[in-house]
């Protein structure tokens, strides 16, 4: 190393006449790519719409037909109800799974092993035919005929919900484990009890990790509800198939069903966006919440 003179600032090199301004980087490639994609998509759409074998007039006739709308309503109801059961029970199973009590954690493990390890179709049929295995449910004067209790709807909700809970429990467990243990320790140190630690500190932060795969599960559930066909409950797919088995307009009715599934998925994705934003507060790197940014600016003004 040769000795260099120590100065406060480096000498300005000769080529640096003025301090220069950085111009934003342009992305001409992106625009070209966008144009290509736009042309391809427009071509595909005109091709599909122009093909009269798709029978768009039939699609139009049935899109808002009474039985289809009823099917949409039932699909939505099944999805919401089964996911609610799945999420609530899934959280319970996940918390039990992480319990220090080995009995509880093994029971929770066995639950998700069983319900993930058998086909959903089998589970649905099993609930539906429970009456054949156990003609009465309950004990003594508190007993009911299983056939009265297990309607196609209850069998559908039990089958879809309990199965979903097994998957959700793994998602929730992953979320809980993603929260640094220091968070729970700090919460315990101020005197919170285990349930308060979980509710107030761990789960809200686990949500960031839990929400995206739960969005997947919900959209998956939307389509899995079609399986309840096997136990005689009807929803969107059943309504569509009942019509095309009568009229043989199979393709247009499948399109009707697909359009509804797409529309509902879009609404669910928008919902997911807002839920993610809510639980991301305090963590986003790109976006500073309005309250936070105001305070930051104020802070800088003072500093």
């Amino acid at each position, binding site marked *: 190393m040769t000795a260099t003179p120590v100065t406060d600032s480096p000498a300005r090199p000769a080529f640096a006449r003025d301090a220069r301004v950085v111009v934003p980087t342009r992305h001409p490639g992106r625009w070209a790519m966008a144009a290509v994609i736009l042309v391809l998509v427009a071509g595909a759409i005109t091709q599909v719409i122009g093909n009269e074998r798709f029978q768009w007039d039939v699609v139009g006739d049935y899109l808002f037909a009474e039985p289809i709308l009823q099917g949409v309503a039932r699909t939505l109801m099944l999805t919401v109800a089964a996911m609610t059961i799945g999420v609530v029970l899934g959280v319970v199973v996940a918390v039990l799974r992480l319990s220090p009590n080995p009995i509880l954690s093994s029971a929770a493990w066995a639950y998700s092993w069983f319900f993930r390890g058998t086909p959903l179709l089998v589970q649905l049929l099993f609930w539906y035919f429970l009456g054949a295995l156990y003609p009465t449910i309950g004990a003594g004067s508190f007993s009911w005929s299983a056939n009265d209790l297990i309607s196609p709807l209850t069998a559908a909700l039990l089958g879809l919900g309990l199965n979903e809970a097994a998957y959700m429990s793994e998602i929730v467990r992953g979320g809980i484990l993603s929260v*640094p243990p220091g*968070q729970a320790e700090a919460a315990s*140190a*101020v*005197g919170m*009890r285990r349930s308060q630690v979980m509710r107030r500190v761990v789960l809200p932060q686990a949500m960031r990790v839990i929400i995206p795969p739960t969005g997947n599960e919900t959209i998956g559930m939307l389509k899995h509800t079609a399986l309840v066909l096997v136990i005689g409950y009807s929803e969107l797919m059943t309504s569509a198939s009942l019509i095309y088995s009568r009229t043989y307009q199979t393709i247009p009715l499948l399109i009707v069903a697909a359009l509804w599934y797409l529309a509902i998925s879009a609404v669910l994705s928008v919902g997911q966006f807002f839920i993610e934003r809510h639980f991301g507060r305090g*963590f986003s790197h790109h976006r500073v919440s309005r309250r936070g940014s105001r305070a930051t600016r104020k*802070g800088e003004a*003072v500093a």
Partner: protein
Amino acid sequence: MTTTTADEPMFQAWDVHKSFGHVEVLKGIDMSVERGEVVCLLGPSGSGKSTFLRCINHLEKFDRGEMWVGGQRVGYRPHGDKLKELNEREVAQRRSGIGMVFQGFNLFGHRTALENVMEGPVVVRREKRAVAEQRARDLLGRVGLADRVDNYPSQLSGGQQQRVAIARALAMQPDLMLFDEPTSALDPELVGDVLAVMRQLAEDGMTMIVVTHELGFAREVADRVYFMDGGVVVESGPPSEVLERPREARTQAFLSKVLA
């Protein structure tokens, strides 16, 4: 909260033993801290300082011995001639009167500075939000963060986060404050702000047990210093003795290493 009489120590430990598996990391610790006293715990890494501190609010269990805070037994109750663990509610209740500040801050990431400080009083003490908020603002003002109340932890520097963490612990109006290397994770230029807050706290009469490598702080603020090594207290006394004229070879070796 406190049931001590004025001359009874705020904290006492007798013969505390603790093993992780077959490794004994605390081998019979005795300690006594008077009300309003500041005690610094020094010692090489792995000597059991954090483990001892965590036993005080029962974040860690111990196998033998006794600990008392403010006239109450910590973690266990007598059961015949043995000790039995307290139930969850009792453990939580004891912890709420002991403040703890961690090396890694551990602020609740989804809550603003103000909400972090309010969380304990609102959730554990069931205080009215308005009351808790007023005290939280006062406390954040005291640690020099009046203009940062609405910031999330990710928007604060390490030094600011640690001061929020101190305010969060103080919000529970603790009898005793525990600090586990509160400045070890900070950039050097931020250490001073945190130490200044702790010094003020000591002047205000808070009883404090501080694990630290900041010898300057120990010398100026501590009433007494404990030097730990290998799970035992090697030497204890006023800083003027332990830090200036250590009697034990292990203390001398440690100090010369830290000062080098």
